[in-house]
C-alpha cells in the first residue's frame, strides 16, 4: 500500500465504521425523527439531516464515550432545530404560533396504529421541543442518569419534569378518548 492510498483507505474505514455504528443504533435516528416529524416525508428529511449531522461530527467523536448518548444528542439537536425552523416558516404563513401546536400531530394514515397510540403520539407531538425530548428518551427506556447526561440537566430535575409531563399526557389521552367516545356515541 502506498503512502498516497492510506488516507483514502482510512476514510473508507471511517465510512464503514460510521455506517456500522449507525446501523447498530438505527432506532435512535428513526424514533427521534418519528417523534419530531409531522409526516412520513418530514421524517425522511429529518433522518437525512440527522445522519448528515452525525457524519459531520463523527471526526470529533470520542470512542471513550457512549455512542448512543452522542447520537441522541445529535439527533435531538438536529430535530429541535428542524422543528423550530419549520415553526418559523409555518408562523410566517399562519402568523399564529398556536395554530402550529394544533396541527403538530402525526399523520394518522401513515402508520397503522391504534387510537391510544395515536393519541399518545399526538400528545407528545404537542409538547414543547425540550419536554418532548425528555419524554421521548424516557419512553424509549433511557435511564434518568442518561437522560440527564444527554439533555444537560440534573437527574432530580428529570424525575420532577417527567412526573408533570406524565400527568399532562395522561390527561390529554383521557380527553382524546372521551372526545372519541362522544363522537362515536353521536355517530
Amino acid at each position, binding site marked *: 500500500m502506498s503512502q498516497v492510498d492510506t488516507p483514502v483507505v482510512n476514510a473508507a474505514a471511517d*465510512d464503514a465504521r*460510521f*455506517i456500522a455504528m*449507525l*446501523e447498530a443504533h*438505527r432506532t435512535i*435516528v*428513526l*424514533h427521534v425523527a*418519528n417523534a419530531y416529524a409531522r409526516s412520513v416525508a418530514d421524517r425522511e428529511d429529518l*433522518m*437525512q*439531516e440527522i*445522519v*448528515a*449531522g452525525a*457524519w*459531520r*461530527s463523527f471526526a*470529533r467523536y470520542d470512542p471513550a464515550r457512549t455512542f448512543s448518548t452522542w447520537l441522541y*444528542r*445529535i439527533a*435531538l*439537536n*438536529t430535530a*429541535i*432545530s428542524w422543528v423550530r*425552523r419549520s415553526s418559523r416558516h409555518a408562523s*410566517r404563513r399562519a*402568523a399564529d404560533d398556536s395554530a402550529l401546536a394544533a396541527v403538530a400531530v402525526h399523520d394518522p394514515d401513515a*402508520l*397503522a*396504529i*391504534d387510537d391510544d*397510540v395515536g393519541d*399518545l*403520539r399526538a400528545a407528545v407531538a404537542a409538547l*414543547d*421541543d*425540550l*419536554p418532548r*425530548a425528555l419524554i421521548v428518551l*424516557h*419512553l*424509549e427506556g433511557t435511564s434518568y442518569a442518561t437522560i440527564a*447526561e*444527554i*439533555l*444537560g*440537566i*440534573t437527574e*432530580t*430535575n428529570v424525575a*420532577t*419534569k417527567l412526573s*408533570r409531563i*406524565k400527568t399532562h*399526557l395522561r390527561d390529554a*389521552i*383521557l380527553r382524546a378518548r372521551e372526545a372519541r367516545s362522544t363522537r362515536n356515541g353521536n355517530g
Partner: protein
Amino acid sequence: MEMDDLSALWQSGNATLASVPVTFGALAARDGTRGALFSIAFGRWFTLASNAIAVLALGSYTGDHFRDPHVGLAATILFAIAVVLLVSSIFQVRMLATIDLSAPPLEVQHRVAVAERVRVASDSVVLCTSPILWTLLAIVGAQVLFGFDAVLVFGTPWILANLGLGLVTLGLGAVFLEPLRRLVAGKTLARVNARLAELARFAAPES
C-alpha cells in the same frame, strides 16, 4: 393510566416503525444535505460579509474626508455604526460556528437563542434608526456620486424632508410587511426572549 402503560403504548407504536426501511449508507452518501443550523448560519455569514464591506468602504472614505464639513461627520457616524454592526455579526457567527451538535440540547439551543437575540436587536436598531441613516447615506452619496455637499446646497429643509421620508417609508413597511411589523413592534425580540425564558425554566430545578 400509569407510566408503564404509556411506555407500552409508545413501544407498540415503535413496533410499527420496525418495518420502515432505512439505508444509512444511502442517507450518508446523499449530497446537498445542509447542516441543521445551515440556514441560520448562512444568513449570519452573509450579514458579516456585507458589514465588513461597509466598514472597509466607509473607513476608507472617512479617512479621506474626515475634515470635510457635513460629509466628514455623516461618514464618521455611518462608519461607527458599521463597526458596531460588524462586531455584532462577528459575535453571532462565532456563537453559531462553535456550536457542537453533540453537546447537550439545552446548551445548543441557548447559544442559538442568544445569537438570534443579538441579530434581532441589531436589525431592530438599524430599522428604527433608518430615517437618520437614510439621510446620512444621502449626504455621503451626494458627495460620492455627484461631488457636492448636499447640506450646503439644499439646506435644513432637505434634511428634514429626508428624515420625514425615512419615517414614512418605515411606517408603511411596518403597516404592510409582517416581518417589519414584528421587528418594529418588538414582537420578534419578545419571541426570542420567551424562548430564552423557556430554556431557563427547563434548566431550573422544579419543586
